[in-house]
């Protein structure tokens, strides 16, 4: 079985997401300036750009960890306008459709790896403990960490923690996964373990939006490359095309800095 089949019990429902005219500012400081992004079901979108471009904030707007000031989010038959009152049903639908993986893993340190993956299933989806534990074990095995099931995150390496965090998000049957610089806190070798799991997930047809500095991953795995700078999307399209022949001077400058390092 593939990762997302295990996650969903069957073939993953393919869901895309449409974000239109998203804006966000803190006080008078604009961080997202009227950004729109349409993500087709089953595709991988890599979001790159210099620090401070608003990539992470934009990603966090997608599942409303940051509340945009304006714009619309359309996902799984729900239309959410973050500038207005959001009803609890829409928010729950959004959060259950969209899973997220953080740069700093954010595992629950007081729970074993197994409980990290099992506990949210019981609370959010109402699964029984044995059902949730079974699913958690399957997913931990799939990310290669069955033997760590009873360890607390503190006893796991960064790469292992991030793979547990991926399992935790997948256990809730998301149809879209957000990754916020998932390998930035890891040394390059350990990052490869995590990238391998993400590649597999992409191959299974999971819809993914990945904020990353891993250019090779962006080129090889993503279907769409989105370049953000100065709070806006400045260029998007086929990753190879953009990397070999960027249209914008700002993109060129950024790519040169990253690729010629």
């Amino acid at each position, binding site marked *: 079985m593939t990762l997302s089949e295990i996650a969903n019990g069957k073939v993953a429902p393919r869901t895309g997401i449409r974000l239109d005219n998203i804006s966000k500012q803190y006080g008078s400081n604009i961080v997202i300036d009227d950004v729109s992004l349409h993500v087709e079901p089953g595709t991988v979108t890599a979001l790159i750009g210099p620090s401070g471009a608003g990539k992470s904030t934009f990603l966090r707007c997608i599942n409303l960890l940051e509340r945009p000031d304006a714009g619309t989010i359309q996902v799984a038959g729900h239309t959410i306008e973050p500038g207005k009152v959001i009803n609890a049903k829409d928010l729950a639908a959004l959060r259950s459709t969209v*899973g997220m993986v953080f740069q700093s893993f954010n595992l629950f340190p007081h729970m074993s790896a197994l409980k990290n993956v099992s506990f949210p299933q019981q609370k959010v989806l109402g699964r029984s403990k044995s059902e949730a534990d079974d699913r958690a074990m399957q997913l931990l095995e799939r990310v290669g960490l069955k033997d760590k099931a009873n360890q*607390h995150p503190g006893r796991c390496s960064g790469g292992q923690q991030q793979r547990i965090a991926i399992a935790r998000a997948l256990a809730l049957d998301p149809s879209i996964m957000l990754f916020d610089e998932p390998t930035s806190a890891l040394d390059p070798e350990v990052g490869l373990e995590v990238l391998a799991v993400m590649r597999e997930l992409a191959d299974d047809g999971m819809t993914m939006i990945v904020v990353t500095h891993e250019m090779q991953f962006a080129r090889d795995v993503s279907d769409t490359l989105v370049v953000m700078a100065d709070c806006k999307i400045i260029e998007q399209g086929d990753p190879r095309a953009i990397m070999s022949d960027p249209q914008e001077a700002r993109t060129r400058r950024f790519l040169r800095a990253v690729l010629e390092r």
Partner: protein
Amino acid sequence: MDAFSAVLQGLPMTLMLTASAFAIGIVGAVPLAVGLSSSNIVVRLACRLFVDLVRGVPIIVWLFLLKFGIQIGTFKFDPVSAAIVGLGVVSVAYLAEIYRGGLEAVPRGQGEASGALGLSRGTTFLHVMVPQAFRIVSPSIATYLTGLLKDSSIASTIIVAEMVFQSQSFARQHPTMEGILPYVLVGILYIALSLPVAYLSRSLDARMRKAVYV
């Protein structure tokens, strides 16, 4: 009667005062700590005002106010109730501040991950924030408890027959060198009572650290 048995006579009252006030504090501080970090500014300010007011006035003043300052109809506090209520309310305020600090010390990412997973606010508080905050604050709570044990001696000023009160009355009856003896003994007793609390807190803390972070 010798000095030691005189002091020991006050021991049950000292333990009872400390335990009652601590119990009131441990439980009562929970809603107050939540109020202190509420996003509702009215609730937050009201809780902050209460905490600062209670902590800003010495315990001895609160005890005098409760014992001698309050009369509602025919109701007046007897010394023991006044001491329990006074020490209890002060504990609520101090422990609420300790809890709040603990909750704020839990990394922000924990709440964000909970939100992203779709956990409710109640579940996040109870199963994610509280267990981690408790580990952070347990040494401070133990420190507070040993402080409270000693502060319970202030109740002697409103005629509660705890250890210091018993020492004083023994001293009054023995205005010789022997009169100093109960104070030495009571000091040793306070130390003896504090040690197990400090020890328990250290081993509890070490055990939780091991479980969580190693």
